[in-house]
């Protein structure tokens, strides 16, 4: 059983990573071919960096990821606060359902619906361009919101309501209570939501495909345009850079988590020792 398990896990992971590895290896290939490896070179990388459109796409992607995640986190955190304390369960349920629509709906429907909306509103207001940077920012905030709320809302449920009551009793205004007592205990959820929103925005292709215009291209849209007709080896290079960035980030996050976990465990152990000594 043990051997079977090992073999099975190994096989599936091998299949899962083989295409990605091939892509990475052949991005360093001198000859433009995926069949034989002629020699190491960085020529596809140089070709990529010479492409101004690629650099512009990277800028656009980062702009969108930073601003859409910040706006979504701001709106979403306050939304979670409001939703958590709502007395009317029916209204609460309705808001939650509407919020989750972009998460449940296929991306293509979300993209199409927003495109129709922007085009119609833009046409009504006689905009020369209804699609572009602004429509992209709005769309990214919209699909990020449910994820932020979903990360923050459970933190409210776990929060000790006695603490905020104590703060109120001691003379804090509700706003002060929120910023001084509740916000610090929400911080991990907010950080998780922010990070999730940032990566989702960087990663999105389908919704962006519908709400963007040719003069506002993000990295995934650039990859799509470039791979539309032929195999391009500079795309292998770009994909490799993205894959390695993701890998490094994922490792960093995991090491950071493991580290803070260890520290936490250390503190707990110390406290336990102290308590034991006292008894």
């Amino acid at each position, binding site marked *: 059983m043990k051997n079977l398990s090992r073999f099975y*896990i190994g096989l599936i992971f091998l299949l899962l990573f083989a295409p990605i590895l091939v892509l990475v290896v052949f991005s360093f290939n001198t000859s433009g071919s995926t069949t034989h490896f002629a020699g190491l070179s960085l020529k596809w990388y140089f070709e990529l960096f010479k492409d101004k459109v690629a650099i512009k796409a990277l800028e656009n992607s980062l702009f969108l990821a930073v601003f859409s995640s910040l706006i979504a986190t701001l*709106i979403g955190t306050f939304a979670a606060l409001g939703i958590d304390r709502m007395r009317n369960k029916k209204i609460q349920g309705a808001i939650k359902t509407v919020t989750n629509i972009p998460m449940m709906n296929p991306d*293509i429907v979300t993209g199409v619906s*927003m495109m129709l909306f922007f085009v119609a509103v833009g046409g009504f207001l006689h905009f020369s361009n209804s699609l572009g940077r602004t429509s992209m920012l709005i769309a990214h905030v919209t699909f990020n919101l449910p994820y932020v709320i979903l990360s923050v809302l459970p933190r409210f449920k776990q929060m000790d309501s006695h603490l905020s009551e104590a703060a109120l009793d001691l003379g804090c205004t509700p706003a002060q209570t929120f910023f001084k007592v509740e916000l610090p205990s929400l911080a991990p959820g907010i950080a998780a939501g922010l990070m999730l929103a940032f990566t989702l925005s960087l990663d999105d292709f389908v919704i962006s495909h519908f709400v963007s215009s040719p003069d506002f291209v993000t990295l995934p849209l650039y990859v799509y345009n470039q791979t539309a007709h032929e195999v391009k080896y500079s795309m292998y290079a770009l994909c490799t850079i*993205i894959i390695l960035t993701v890998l490094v980030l994922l490792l960093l996050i995991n090491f950071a988590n493991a580290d803070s976990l260890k520290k936490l465990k250390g503190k707990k152990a110390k406290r336990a020792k102290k308590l034991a000594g006292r008894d």
Partner: protein
Amino acid sequence: MKTGNLFRKAAAAPHILWSVMFIVFPLLFVIYFAFTDSYGNFTFDNITGLSGYTNTFILSIGFALIATVVCILIGYPLAYFISKTAPSKQKILIVLLMLPMWINLLIRTYSLMSLLDNGGLINGMLSNLGLPKLKMVGTGGAVILGMIYDFLPYMVLPIYTTMTKLDQRYIEAARDLGCNNFQVLTKVIIPLTVPGIISGITMVFVPSISTFYISQKLGGGTFDLIGDTIERQFQNELTYNTGAAISLIMMILILISLAVMNKFADNDEDGGIIV
């Protein structure tokens, strides 16, 4: 306390406004476009005209169903085996499993294409061995393989999550009462991990049925799925109405099946979201 309530209520207001503006209104526009012609007159033609797309719907549902079933068959044992490894190893395996999920879908599909293509690695190896080339890109199999390859981690992770949350005492009780390993699996573990399987199904089926990049790249333009059809309608302003009608029908179909499946999974908090 009155000002407190006001602060709480006002806190959700920007979000409610945002949701109405950019979630509800856009969906109303889909409905509006689905029931009007290109001049804005009310019509049922777009909906009745969808009978011409019956084959597209059948093909898409078929492909997505096959991909989902294969993902369960491959993914369930994988989740089970991973949950049985040592905890330190488990963590590494889960990070490895999540790695492809953080890599853009276009890149993963494109990398698979670089293997399967006529000038790709597999065909290169075949011709080096003196064997005839295999036509893979452009077949239905390649499209389904693409769906499985792209979405398999989304099946494994929720199943794995429910497995690790499983109360081990049930398994011990089943053993004590005389179940063998196989019976423990079929009578205890599988029924208790149904919520994980169901969120896995939604996370594989919904993107599979609505994809257009996978079928464009791996189908070589020979397979027209729902996603491809919708995408094409929105390249030309004159066919927005047909595109909206197809989107509306697909959305309704998916929302109905989600609602039906959620009835089976009585708790909706398990493994629904992956971070």
